C-alpha cells in the first residue's frame, strides 16, 4: 500500500514538473513573439506626410524710357539729346554754354516699373560724387507694376569741359 502511494505521488510530481516547464517555456516564446509583433506593427503602421513650402520674392526691375530737360539756370546755348537703345535710354548728351557757375538744372526721368512688385525711388547716386551734386527733387510715393512715372532730379555742376558722368536711381519695395 505504502509503495503504491509513493509511486502515485512520484508520478504526479513528475507530471507537474514537466507541465510547469512547458508552461514557462511556452509563455516565454509567446511573449517574445508578441513583443516582436508589437514592434513590427508599430514600425509598419506609421506614416509620414510631406508638407512642402516654397517661397520666392518679387522682382524689382525698372527701365528708363526717356529723359527730359525741364529747367535750368540761364545759359547762352544749350543742346540736349537722348540716345536710345531700342525703347530704353542709353545715354544723354548735353552741351551748355553758360556764365553761371555752378550751373543748376532739373531733369525728368521717365521710368517704367517692369518688375513684379510696387517700388519707390529712394535716392540717386553718381559715379563722381565729389565733383557733381545730384538730388531727388520729386518722386512718386509708389510706382505700381507696369506704371510709368516721372522722377525729377536736380543736377548741379561747376565749370567743366568734356565731363562725363553716370547716375544711378535707387529703387526699393514700396511699403505701406
Amino acid at each position, binding site marked *: 500500500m505504502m509503495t503504491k502511494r509513493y509511486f502515485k505521488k512520484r508520478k504526479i510530481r513528475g507530471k507537474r514538473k514537466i507541465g510547469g516547464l512547458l508552461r514557462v517555456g511556452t509563455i516565454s516564446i509567446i511573449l517574445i513573439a508578441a513583443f516582436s509583433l508589437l514592434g513590427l506593427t508599430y514600425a509598419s503602421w506609421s*506614416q509620414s*506626410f510631406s508638407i512642402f513650402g516654397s517661397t520666392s520674392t518679387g522682382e524689382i526691375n525698372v527701365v528708363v524710357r526717356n529723359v527730359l530737360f525741364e529747367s535750368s539756370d540761364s545759359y547762352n546755348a544749350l543742346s540736349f539729346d537722348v540716345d536710345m537703345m531700342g525703347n530704353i535710354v542709353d545715354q544723354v548728351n548735353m552741351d551748355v554754354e553758360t556764365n553761371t557757375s555752378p550751373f543748376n538744372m532739373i531733369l525728368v526721368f521717365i521710368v517704367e516699373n517692369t518688375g513684379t512688385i510696387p517700388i519707390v525711388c529712394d535716392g540717386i547716386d553718381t559715379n563722381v560724387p565729389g565733383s557733381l551734386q545730384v538730388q531727388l527733387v520729386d518722386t512718386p510715393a509708389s510706382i505700381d507694376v507696369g506704371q510709368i512715372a516721372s522722377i525729377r532730379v536736380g543736377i548741379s555742376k561747376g565749370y567743366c569741359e568734356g565731363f562725363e558722368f553716370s547716375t544711378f536711381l535707387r529703387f526699393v519695395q514700396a511699403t505701406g
Partner: protein
Amino acid sequence: MNVRSKKLLIISVTCLIIVGLSYSIALGQELKDNYTNNVFLIELIPEECKVLDMSEGVSASVEFIRDEFGNIVDKTFIHLLAENIYAGASVTYAIALRNISSLALSVDHYTISIDGGSNSLEDLIRFSGSVKIYRSESEYDVLGSFSNIRIDELAQNLTNIMKYRKIDITEKIVIELEQFFENSSVRFKQDEGFSYKLVPVFIQYFP
C-alpha cells in the same frame, strides 16, 4: 553510408537551407514593402486644402502631384507655393487631412528641413496658425494655436499641440498656417527664395 555520400548530403542540405532562407527574407521584405507602400493611415482632402488669404500682388496656391490626366496620385504630399512675396506680405493656407485607416492615430512628431539659398528670408519668415480636429462636419475642437514663431520653432510647436491627441477613425484635422514676412525692406533682397519640408509622422494611437 560512406564519407563521400555524407559530405554530399551535408552540402545539399546546406544549399537547400540557404535557398529557403533567402526566399523567406525576400518574401518578408516584399510583404513589408507592400504594406508600407500601399496602405495609408491618413491622407489629404484636396478640395479642402486651399489658400485662405493672401496679400495683394502675391501669387499663392496649393499643389499636388498629379498624373497626365490631372488626377492626384499622391495624397500624402502637398506643395504650398508662394511667389512674388515682399516685406510685410502674408499667405494663409488650410491643410485638411482625414484618418482613413481602421486605427486610431496620433502624431508622433514633426520634423522640418529648410533648404534656403538665403538666410535672410529664413530669418524674416514667421508663422501663426491653429490646429482643429473635426469630429463631424460642424463639430470641432481647437487643439491649439501658435503665433509669430520662427521657422525653426514650427515643428516643435505643432508636435506639442498634436502629440498624444487621439485622432479617431474618419476624424478630420485642419491645420491653418499663416506665413508672413517681417516688414523690413532693408534686409529684403530681390531674386531670393527658399523652401522647407514639414513632415508630420502619424502612428497608431497607444493610450
